């Protein structure tokens, strides 16, 4: 264990409390912190001042690549690798290739959405300092948490404890790294 802890963790009982606490922490100007909730609390990302997700761009690029590759594959197979005239159609009868193009676009887009989300979230990540807290296991049940990292430039344990207490935290603890 390094002498420096991971940070300070505050526990809240309700979505309302954690929401207002997040607004406060955001306005105090903290940067290295996060909140943890059992379900997505509506608008909490804005209360934390987080920017929009970049995921849609990843999905757009992946979906278009999938569709493009799908059409390319069908053109190559039908017009280059095995040119056969079927029902008197041109070799590259693209209209007939639309269904497969669409399906591959959706497939790649879905891969982009899921694996892009894993990438942006750095999942899987089996170890994280917040798990060192005994009480943290209730984050997947009914408790709400805010953790501010010790590496935050504005981190000051005493001041923070006071701040959290004033915001209605039901339990405050220092978490090991």
């Amino acid at each position: 264990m390094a002498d420096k802890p991971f940070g300070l963790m505050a526990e809240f009982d309700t979505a309302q409390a954690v929401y207002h606490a997040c607004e406060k922490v955001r306005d105090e100007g903290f940067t290295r912190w996060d909140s943890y909730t059992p379900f997505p609390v509506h608008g909490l990302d804005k209360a934390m001042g987080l920017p929009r997700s970049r995921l849609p761009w990843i999905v757009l690029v992946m979906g278009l690549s999938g569709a493009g590759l799908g059409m390319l594959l069908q053109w190559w197979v039908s017009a280059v690798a095995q040119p056969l005239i079927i029902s008197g159609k041109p070799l590259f009868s693209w209209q007939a290739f639309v269904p497969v193009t669409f399906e591959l676009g959706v497939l790649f887009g879905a891969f982009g959405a899921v694996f892009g989300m894993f990438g942006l979230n750095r999942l899987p990540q089996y170890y994280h300092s917040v798990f060192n807290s005994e009480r943290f296991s209730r984050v997947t049940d009914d408790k709400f948490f805010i953790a501010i990292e010790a590496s935050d430039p504005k981190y000051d344990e005493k001041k923070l404890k006071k701040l959290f207490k004033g915001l209605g935290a039901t339990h405050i603890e220092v978490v090991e790294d």
Partner: protein
Amino acid sequence: MAANYEIDPVSGRAPLVLGEGSFSDVTNAVAAPMERTDWRKWWMAFMVSLGMLGILGVAVGYLIWEGTGIWGLNVPVAWGWAIVNFVFWVGIGHAGTLISAILFLLRQKWRTSINRFAEAMTIFAVLAAAIFPGIHVGRIWVAYYMFPLPNQMDVWPNFRSPLLWDVFAVSTYFTVSLLFWYVGLIPDLATMRDRSVTKLRKMVYGIFALGWRGSTRHWLHYETAYLILAALATPLVLSVHTIVSFDFAVSNVPGWHTTIFPPYFVAGAIFSGFAMVLTLMIPARKIFDLEHLVTIKHLENMAKVILLTGSMVGYAYAMEFFIAWYSGNPYEGFAFVNRAFGDYAWAYWIMVSCNVISPQFFWFKKLRRSPMFLFIISIFVNIGMWFERFVITVTSLHHDFLPSSWDYYTPTIWDVLTFVGSFGLFFTLFCLFVRFMPMVAIAEVKTVMPQADPHYVPGMEKQVQGDVLGPGWMQRSEADAVAAQASVEAARDTKTDTDSDEGKRHG
């Protein structure tokens, strides 16, 4: 009395989770079925399912050994139960994605209690469906010809064939459904990880939960991913049954060659899928004490979807006849007269009774809100939708263009056993699902509870509901819950001034 049970479906203000339970109560209620210790009944159901799965193994094994000659196929009817069963199972698989994707985009919050269950059903149904195109090729060891793989003969698939489109549509559908289901499961797997008492459980759930810690920075990307998946799955689910219908519609066979097929197949798929959700959900919510999460309101909503899609299917049946007459094409006309009054008239009228007549009972609220009645009708719909595919496939083929080759098609015991076996696969997977996975999306259900809203004020709902739902609702029986709900409704009617606030609560 029935009028008192009324719930206003337009405002959607009836509670989606009955009573005043806490978040923890939801977690406990959903996790309870997985944490019970008495698994005797489960083992019984599992062994029966496993036995049926064994039948599938035998039927498929014999098919591979002997060839498709063991089936009842003959020369005009070269497409028999294999395609019927395939379309039947794929159709059932449509409700899951409809509930999870389309209702999500339409912000139908009632879907949260049933989407996990329906998605699981989708995946298992698509797996059961996938058996049939795999085995019906006869020479199963060359099934890889279906995919565009380089091979020593330098032969490639024909991308102009609807059967090939089907391969892409169904495999994409399966993959996307599985991803959608898994993404939805991650937070709940983390819940199970954190509740686990045994080391093995903790490890297995932990591995699949990917180290989820409920971070808001994660939820942000997570919710975006979920929304995008829903947006991708919506056109996908419509495309899948459209392409399945192309298998028929693109051919020149009278009775198949119609442009109504894609929408008609999609409506039928949703119809059969919702029926199957009801068939499975009604016993499950009873057995596993989930009646306060999957309420009568949920069942009623599903009944309405069945009524709507069933009527659309009925309309399509009528329109097919109209077009057969209006087109002036004698072959088309013959195909339909033969369908309703020919050798397979019995099958046609079973189909009409089950699919068109039986859902019409759902015009009556009392019947829509009776689980027993819903269950019975859902079975009729399942049967009717299987017969629909049978009628479409067999009646058009058995009297084809050349009267000298006309024949009557009868399935053999192997056709029947393969179909029964596919139910074995479906139920085996389902047994494993109810034992090891949260049947209801825990995290999602919490979001539709009033106290999940960051601007909720304690007691807010009491203004509206009156003090009728006390603590301890978890132990209440369904009758109590329904009666309590009725009082809620009555209380609300007298306090309409607070309604607009209530409606915005989740906005």
